[in-house]
């Protein structure tokens, strides 16, 4: 009844509602999937773990004494938009997101260089001991965002880019060796087996390329986009697709061996052990399948989507659900054991060294869990001192 008596108040209320709506819209945009934060996994080499942090830096963590080194932050390609939520800023431009360039791919280490790709569309090579920058590709300008990881083999760095191309660079100098164009963005990490590179694209295809010159050997079309990384074992390529199938493809000629349907996308790289393929799915389950036929051996419910690639520790496979619960799957007894709940969302690949699993969360923290006992060790902050 009160607004019947006060028209001005009614007008003000309407105006306030509009303002609230606009603030809500702005806030909402920042929260719901517009910001690129990154989910880099870790790579261990010579007692040092390399990981891309949410601040847009490569961080080197000495596993023995937990000392850390940080690289210079990667530079964003374009400034953030008016409200700081522009998605193409090369990183988390949102006011609530980190200022740095998002890093999705896991670093690769070879010799004295550590490589990393940024969402700003650049590849960086750092000295693995000092983290000083050795080279950057491209030297001028930027490619489209790089989401997948890097693979180093035969003196080359291979990666896929959102411009739809697969690139091979000279690992020592960063000079481009070859490129191969697919029909859509590439978010997948290349897998190398012998002289063949396997990579999936959002154009629904799995490509097999010559690692030497980038010439196409074959392609295999699935029913959906591919973001997962291929697992190559015993001349078979295992890869998941957005059509909800996990495919086993002949690595020699690209013919289909079998396919298995889950209830959602297969986002992560599967893992194979003892003639069984273990594949985490966004339906919250891990499927254990016969490597030869694709027949289902068992399925394990993790109760939350599985988007981080698992890791093998001895004869156990460690999985993390998006909710942050860490599981250990004993391949011998097919028993799934809940290790611990770190209570933080986990998207990035897991990493293990000497029985310890490293989990990088989006909270600038590197969690450590003993894979055998499930004991949580002191976490390591990746926040730089600057």
């Amino acid at each position, binding site marked *: 009844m009160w607004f*019947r008596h006060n028209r001005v108040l009614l007008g003000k209320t*309407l*105006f306030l509602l*509009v303002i609230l709506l*606009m603030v809500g819209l*702005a806030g909402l*945009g920042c929260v*719901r999937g517009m910001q690129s934060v990154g989910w880099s996994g870790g790579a261990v080499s010579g007692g040092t773990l390399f990981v891309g942090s949410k601040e847009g830096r490569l961080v080197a963590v000495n596993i023995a004494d937990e000392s850390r080194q940080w690289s210079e932050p990667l530079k964003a390609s374009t400034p953030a938009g008016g409200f700081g939520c522009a998605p193409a800023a090369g990183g988390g431009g949102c006011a609530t997101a980190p200022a740095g360039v998002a890093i999705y791919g896991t670093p690769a280490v070879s010799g004295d260089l550590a490589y990393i790709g940024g969402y700003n569309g650049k590849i960086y090579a750092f000295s693995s001991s000092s983290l000083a920058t050795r080279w950057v590709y491209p030297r001028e300008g930027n490619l489209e965002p790089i989401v997948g990881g890097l693979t180093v083999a035969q003196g080359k760095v291979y990666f896929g880019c959102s411009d739809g191309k697969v690139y091979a660079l000279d690992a020592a100098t960063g000079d481009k060796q070859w490129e191969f164009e697919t029909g859509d963005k590439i978010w997948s990490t290349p897998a190398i087996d012998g002289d063949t590179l396997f990579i999936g694209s959002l154009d629904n295809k799995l490509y097999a390329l010559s690692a030497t010159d980038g010439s196409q050997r074959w392609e295999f079309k699935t029913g959906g986009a591919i973001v997962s990384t291929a697992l190559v074992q015993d001349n078979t390529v295992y890869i998941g697709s957005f059509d909800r199938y996990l495919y086993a493809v002949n690595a020699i000629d690209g013919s289909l061996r079998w396919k298995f349907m889950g209830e959602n996308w297969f986002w992560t790289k599967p893992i194979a052990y003892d003639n069984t393929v273990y594949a985490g799915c*966004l339906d919250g389950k891990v499927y254990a399948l016969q490597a030869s036929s694709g027949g289902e051996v068992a399925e394990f419910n993790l109760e939350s989507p599985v988007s981080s690639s698992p890791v093998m520790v001895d004869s156990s496979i460690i999985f993390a659900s998006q909710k942050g619960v860490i599981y250990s799957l004993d391949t011998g007894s097919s028993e799934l054991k809940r290790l611990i709940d770190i209570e933080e969302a986990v998207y990035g690949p897991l990493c293990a060294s000497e029985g310890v699993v490293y989990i990088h969360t989006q909270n600038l923290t590197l969690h450590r869990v003993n894979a055998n006992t499930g004991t949580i060790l002191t976490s390591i902050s990746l926040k730089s001192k600057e």
Partner: protein
Amino acid sequence: MNVWDLIILQPVINILIVMSHYLASSFGLAIIALTIIVNVLIYPLTMKQINAMKGMQTLQPKMAELQKKYAKDRQKLAQEQMRLYKESGMNPAGCLVPMLVQMPIWIALFQSIILSLAVAPEGLLNLARYLYSWPIVYSILPLGKDFLWLNLAEPDMPLAILVGATMWLQQKMSMSASADPKQQMQSRMMLWMMPLMFAFLCLSFPSGLALFWVTSSVIRIVMQYFATGWGGLVPSTAGKQVVSDRRYRHRITLQETPLKDADTGADIVEPRSTQGEGLGYQKPGGKWQDRFRAIRRQPRGTGGHQRKRR
């Protein structure tokens, strides 16, 4: 998944994705089509809101007069306002309620477009949990972002300007001139503030959202046109408003005038001091002048408009 996600967001997202599939895999067309469909569905509500706003605007000058007249008597003012609402058949909540009902619908559309666009990799990963188990839905993702000259995932300056322009146009159409300076200022503020803020927002948000806003505004312009014509865009509308405002002012003045004064026979002649007020008021040969002459010609004591009321 919470209730909002389950009941509102999930269906809308899946419908958007399916529509993209059937509209030449164009997410831009899907946004436009869904915006049109939603507008058609809430057409009665929107029209109710437009009509209520229109009604409220016609009452505003009368309200201003009442406020002026009963500035010191709040109780009397409230009574008169209530009486005015009752007489005109207006409900002051008439424009607020439809707006409140529409708001969740627009927020749901807004959220669905953002989620479906999956601008960042996290967005695509997050989208997976909203999908129904329809093969079309799974296979078409991620949605193509190209539409006309736009990359729907990135902000676009021309589209941001278009958002501002269409919103301004729609606001302007829904406005009418008021004799109340306070009201004028508030209207002017709304006229510029909203379009500017939305245009500014569009410089930060993916252009897919801007496309949604432009489509919504264009639809509202069409609806507004059929409800009120060009409204505030045409100056003569404002003139009519002011004339009716004056007639009302006379009426409430005369309600308080003693009988002997009312019987002069020239009691509705405008005082000179107020003749210059308003826009388009003194058009030669207009209806007001005709009416004025007719009243002047009436003989004393025959009982004019005021007598009849008594």
